[in-house]
């Protein structure tokens, strides 16, 4: 690790000022950034911690909308119990140490192709709220580690419409225990959304064919004969494209069966 300065602003305005300097980097829970720095693969001159910003903390449930502060930890999202799919997802990330440091904003800003939260955001049609705009989840995710965020832009909150029923199924990569494949299914009055993480070289995506079928028949049997195109799936030590494509179908079915 190289030397760096560390600041911990108490509000978003001060954080933006701190981030304006060259080589400054926002720090959420540090679950990706700190290991990367320890490997000397990142060398920010200044870390701007977002964990002291109270306006970015907490989970608020109002009517059919849950609003989660960008600096809220996975553990606190799980504790809030907003809806089943989200609670299960947050409570299943990493281990207790990870869940008590890692944040939803950090995860969505990083957009790791194997992270869990992108699946929840995309499947619920979430709104990503930043310091100066609101971005639809469908526009936000732009490929592995790539998002619509500008250089100095902080996710201050995430708003999700609460589904009628939902479920997240994660098949863990045996080493990292990130999602080898994760599928989030969310059923709304106007249709079903299915978001898949871990599987694609293009990051999180919606399985629209399955959404169409499940919107008319919300049962695991409805998608039994379906398959997802494997051509752009990830192939690595832990599974081929075809294996990941299989898991997408299997986990979608299990998510539908388990959705509550």
């Amino acid at each position, binding site marked *: 690790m190289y030397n760096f300065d560390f600041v911990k602003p108490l509000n978003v305005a001060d954080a933006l000022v701190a981030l304006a300097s060259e080589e400054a980097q926002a720090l959420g829970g540090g679950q990706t950034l700190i290991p990367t720095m320890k490997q000397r693969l990142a060398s920010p001159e200044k870390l701007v911690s977002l964990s002291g910003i109270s306006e970015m903390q907490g989970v608020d449930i109002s009517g059919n909308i849950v609003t989660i502060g960008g600096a809220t930890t996975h553990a606190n999202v799980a504790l809030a119990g907003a809806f089943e799919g989200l609670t299960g997802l947050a409570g299943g990330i990493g281990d207790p140490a990870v869940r008590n440091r890692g944040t939803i904003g950090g995860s969505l800003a990083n957009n790791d192709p194997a992270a869990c939260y992108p699946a929840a955001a995309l499947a619920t049609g979430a709104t990503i709220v930043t310091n100066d705009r609101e971005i639809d989840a469908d526009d936000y995710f732009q490929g592995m580690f790539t998002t619509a965020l500008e250089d100095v832009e902080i996710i201050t909150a995430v708003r999700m419409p609460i589904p009628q029923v939902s479920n997240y199924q994660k098949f863990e990569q*045996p*080493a990292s225990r990130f999602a080898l494949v994760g599928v989030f299914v969310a059923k709304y009055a106007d249709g079903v959304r299915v978001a898949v993480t871990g599987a694609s070289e293009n990051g999180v995506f919606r399985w629209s064919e399955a959404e169409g079928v499940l919107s008319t028949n919300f049962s695991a049997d409805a998608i039994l004969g379906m398959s997802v195109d494997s051509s752009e799936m990830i192939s690595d*030590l832990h*599974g081929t494209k075809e*294996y990941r494509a299989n898991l997408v179908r*299997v986990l979608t079915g299990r998510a539908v069966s388990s959705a509550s």
Partner: protein
Amino acid sequence: MPKDSGIGTSPKRREDIRFLTGNGKYTDDINLTGQSYAAFVRSDVAHGKINSIDTSAAENMAGVLAVFTGEDFADVGGNPAGWLINSRDGEPMKEPKRPVLAHGKVRHVGDAYAAVIAETAAQAQNAVDAINADITELPAIVDMATALASGSFVHDEIETNQCFDWGWIEDNRAATDAAIRSAPHVTTLSLVNNRLVPNAMESRASTADYDPGTGDYTLYTTSQNPHLTRLLICAFVLGIPENKLRVVSPDVGGGFGSKIYHYGEEALVLAAAKKLCRPVKWTASRSESFLTDAHGRDHVTKIELACEKDGTFIAFRTDTMANVGAYLSNFSTVTPTFLHGTLMAGNYTVPNVYVNVKAVFTNTAPVDAYRGAGRPEATYSLERVIDKCARELALDPIELRRKNFIKPDQFPYASAAGLEYDAGNYDALFDKLEEIVDFGGFKARRAESEKGGKLRGLGINSYIEACGIAPSNLVGILGARVGLYDAATVRVNATGNISVMVGAHSHGQGHATVFPQVVSEMLGVEENSIEIVHGDTSKIPFGMGSYGSRSLAVCGSAVVRATEKIINKATKIAAHMLEASESDIDFKDGKFSVSGTDKSVAFGEVAFKAYVPHDYPHDELEPGLEETAFYDPANFTYPSGAYACEVEVDPETGQVTVESFTAVDDFGNVINPMIVTGQVHGGIGQGIGQALLENCTYDENGQLLSASYMDYAMPRASDLPFYTVDHSCVTPCTHNPLGVKGCGEAGAIGSPPTIVNAVVDALHSGGHTHVTHIDMPVSPARVWSAINS
């Protein structure tokens, strides 16, 4: 009344209080005044020619004290292989030099070719980044079969990538071939014994100190055997006189084999400490551990089992390629040969065994002994092919094994692979296994699993292993370059408490608890007044450390012999004190008494007399009460076991879960049942790790793909079931004084085939009968691919 101390009881591990309260003292915890820090420049290519190394920028950086390259060590010796293997044609193995720092060529990713010493660790690391090497990348030699056919070489000077081509037993080859040709049934299996990264919790670390006044060196290092490390450094590498180098291995956080060996970093910090007249410290990062700790296993094997139609074994023939990596690590040549080939008769009365092992250099990290070292590879090959054979002949896998077992009345038994098994009762182990495991209820459990969409499999395994490698006379004939004895000094202090200096090294085994149990039993002195001293060449007699499940069988025997000498001398002193003839003295429960009288003296009184020798038979006896014994075993010890497990397979995802695991082992006499159970638990955990999760993989360019915990899957508690462990079947070792065998590696030896046998069984139950084998790790993706192939 049951015993409450001594042999056969389970006092809690006394060292654990220290470890659990943060009071352990590991190498990295040792900080010396004026200490500087080393960092290494490591190759990022698998194979390359070093054209030049520009160190000038680094040398001028803040805090940098010295920079070393391979050139600085061109004139010192190489780190040697500890065992000479001769090829089938009588030619000795190829032994290219393993230098302190790579010189001329780099041969694997992580191969160190320069080092920086600086005031701080960060400054050293910054200077590492400033060293510019001009290295021409050469094609990487990774795959073993390709390496053997290749015209380019890891070591140009030997003009081959084959280290040796070993046959065991060469004289049995023709008969084995003939038996297989004419056998009524032959089962053939090709398999890979997957390469593993040892992953000791404590990474390697070394701190060297040099006293310019006396010329004495001290090396604090993470070693399983400090005397061996000293010998290698002094006699082969740096040429320091042995009496000028003290090697200290304090608390060591796990080794599993990887810390047996001497590594170049140890020599570098010693040389740097002398040059700078300052202590020099190096602690490996986890990434360095992945890249440079000696890896384990990595065999590619074809095994054939020939038998009669009724399953009577006729022959085993094995062809193995064993990866030794880029350089010969100290025990890399004996591991795939004498620790593997000699076990290829298993527990069986098979008359013909032949093993061919080709050891292959590749542009990968060195490969050496790892928990089990050769015996897991032997057991895996044997027990997988036997299981496949049982399926082909529609025989019960337990009955097939029983049919071929060596029977209790056949011991000592000369196996067809050249070992003499001294004791064992394999049928008794299976009797116990069948008593513990509810085999009768398996069908119902399988049906229950199927209701949930899962396939259930039952895996059976039998193993024999050889540990406490010995005797020195024999291994010398077979090519060993070291002796394989161990040593202990028992020092009874004037006030009656006792220090026992042992050559064995504890890095998790529990020696501080177990050895006092033995001495306490013999002397009648409380365990708590007996302390074990280990890990410091300035304090202990010359011993060979701990590996190969040898601590108790070999060093424990030395402890017994030294303690017997203590009793012998103390008896003479007591006879003088009691004014009796020595032959009339009885020693029992810590008291010397004159037979048939009520006259006695306590052990403590005798000890005091030895050190305050007023009224003492000085003409017959020296003062003091301290004795040393060296013990060289007559044979290996041969633990054996019967294992069973049940797995569930999710056919949709390929996920395997281990539902139950039962291990019945014969370890001979057991000193501390709790510690033995713990050793078996740990071994099974590592074995399940190998079977289901762990996979050290290089790509075709020699880049390590599984170079961190993001890609190298370690077993976690949630991956493991509760184990049922039994070691009540005892056939004592016939040739050591405690009748003990070794227990440290058994779990890692016995468990991998048990798991894979169970997975194959599960798949067959689901109708996937085309799957006769899946290579380890039996990952979800591999199981799914096998089902859908």
